């Protein structure tokens, strides 16, 4: 993740109805959307931005399997090898009686693992400082940040956003470290997706 100071043109939209065409136009024009910050999950916005599908559920499945095997190996080792207890003459390998605990541990491993993975991927933790492009991004504004390079004419980008329907436009300089995001890898280019 390349660190350092970067320049962003930030446009705020009041309604997702305006935001969707704007996202499309900005991408079509070849600008790189750093991110769009929304107060609630806007369905379809990830597709419109060309973000990849998340695979966090696959991680959850793997953690779940890990929980199942941990529970089964642990209990069978204890009850058949380490300390076999005679419980009413029943078999030491009492698989049916272990199903509840196996199930619980599967769920526990999966849930805890997924939440930790989620926090790790999104860089969420207490005392994390991040750059917030607009304080109302968590209230009622949809905030689009466009990344500028040396070649970008930011006045042109601002005009472009104005035409796209942004209500509030400004230029912000923010440190692009690991805490701002890692979208360089996540985002597919518009031309790759649409073929031009």
């Amino acid at each position, binding site marked *: 993740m390349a660190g350092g100071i970067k320049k962003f043109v930030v446009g705020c939209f009041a309604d997702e*109805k305006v935001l*969707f*065409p704007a996202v499309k136009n900005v991408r079509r024009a070849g600008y790189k959307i750093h*991110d*769009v*910050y*929304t*107060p*609630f*999950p*806007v*369905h*379809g*916005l*990830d597709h*419109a*931005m060309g*973000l990849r599908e998340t695979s*966090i*559920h696959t991680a*959850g499945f793997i953690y*779940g399997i890990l929980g199942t095997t941990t529970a089964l190996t642990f209990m069978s080792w*204890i*009850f058949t090898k*380490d300390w076999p*207890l005679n*419980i009413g003459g*029943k078999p030491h390998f*009492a698989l049916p*009686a*272990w199903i*509840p*605990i196996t*199930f*619980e541990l599967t*769920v*526990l491993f*999966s*849930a805890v693992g*997924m*939440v930790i993975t*989620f*926090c790790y*991927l*999104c860089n*969420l*933790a*207490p*005392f*994390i*400082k991040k750059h*917030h492009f607009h*304080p*109302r*991004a*968590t*209230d*009622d504004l949809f*905030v689009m940040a466009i990344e500028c390079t040396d070649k970008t004419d930011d006045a042109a980008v601002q005009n472009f956003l104005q035409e796209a329907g942004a209500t509030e436009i400004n230029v912000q300089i923010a440190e692009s470290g690991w805490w701002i*995001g890692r979208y360089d890898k996540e985002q597919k280019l518009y031309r790759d997706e649409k073929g031009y």
Partner: protein
Amino acid sequence: MSLLKYESQQREPLVDGNKDYHQITEDIIGPIEMKPGRLWYIGFFISVGLLLFGVYSVYREVVYGVGQWNLNKTIGWGWDITNFVWWVGIGHAGTLISAILLLFRQGWRTGVNRAAEAMTIFAVMCAGQFPIWHMGRVWMAFFVLPYPNTRGPLWVNFSSPLLWDVFAISTYFTVSLLFWYSGLLPDFATVRDRAKTKFRKLMYGMAAFGWTGSTKHWQRHESLSLVLAGLATPLVLSVHTIVSFDFATSVIPGWHTTIFPPYFVAGAIFSGFAMVQTLLIVVRKMMNLQDYITIGHIEAMNKVIVLTGSIVGCAYLTELFIAWYGQNPYEWYAFSQNRANIFTPYGWSYWIMMFCNVVSPQLFWSRKLRRNITVTFFMSIIVNIGMWYERFVIIVTSIYRDFLPSSWSTYYSPSTWEIGFYLGTFGLFFTCFFLFAKYFPVIAVAEIKSILKTSGENYKARMTDMEKEDAEKFYLDEVEHAH
């Protein structure tokens, strides 16, 4: 071009009034930024008082032993296990609302899920107290954990339902907490970004984990919520199933039945929804949230109450029938004498249970009564009394007359410290709930915003125009936006 999703006008709006996104933030976050009212202080201090009484009762139990409770050799499980099952049952509605209703795509859950999940967590905390303190030598409570030790190592019995309970309850608590907290992150961020004082900014900033609202984060958050809901759904069913195994795997008449798991789960949802009603009717009034927790929400929950209440009623009758049909003399004696015969020492409790759980919820077949707040509030308390009696009936009436008549127990009534312990858990529950109502967004702000345009009253009014639109064009619009 409209991004207004169409929803039938037959459906009631879930958000009343002329709201926009900012107004929702104001309405829900506003109250937690103000000083709490007099009612809050009164309620909070009463709760803390009860909690302290509970702490003292438990202190006596620890210092002088379980003899402080009026249990005896025959009735070895009394109020404590009754209260445990009762609280765990209450703790089921939150996850049901947030997980199962999420999978069923029920929009109305967004108004009530946050408070219901909080209630779940606090109820499970209260439930956990009972088995822990009933151990007597509570300083050895860690013996229930399977860890390599110097006593052999002597492991726990993984084939025992009581150990399944340890795993089930602790997993349930952890998963509910994670589910609840991951949903709270975006709302804490909203509070943080509105905070005026440095201290608030710091505290809520810490709580929000640096949430920004990035689209990628939302995408992962949605996926996380969906999978957690998928995990929590079988989990919530498994937890009360396992609690019922504590009874059903034994050979005590009245307990040894295969109907227990579904019957316990239905009962848990029944009592849980009743407690959600009790709390939300107070919260919506206290914090002026009538626009978000509407009569429609209350009615929807009353429908769940009448459904689960009837399932429970069906289970009671099935149980009674099978006890007779099975022709096991002990089983039939437990049902026909210890329970259904009102003239035996505990017969009264069976009929209280029958009345509160089976007869009274039938009122809710009437739409008018379902939508009446006073009736709902009253009924929610009746249901919880009934569900407490259900556990009491199951536990005490099955064991007070042992197989040997010489072991039949004298009349069992709780001691002051037993009642004090129970009251103390009410103190714990309400202390937590009052703090929650003061410092946390009691309604999931982000989720309400996401349903505003389909289910908000002012937006629904505009759908008349959409109904005139060409369906094909509408569909194309939707597809174009989604991809």
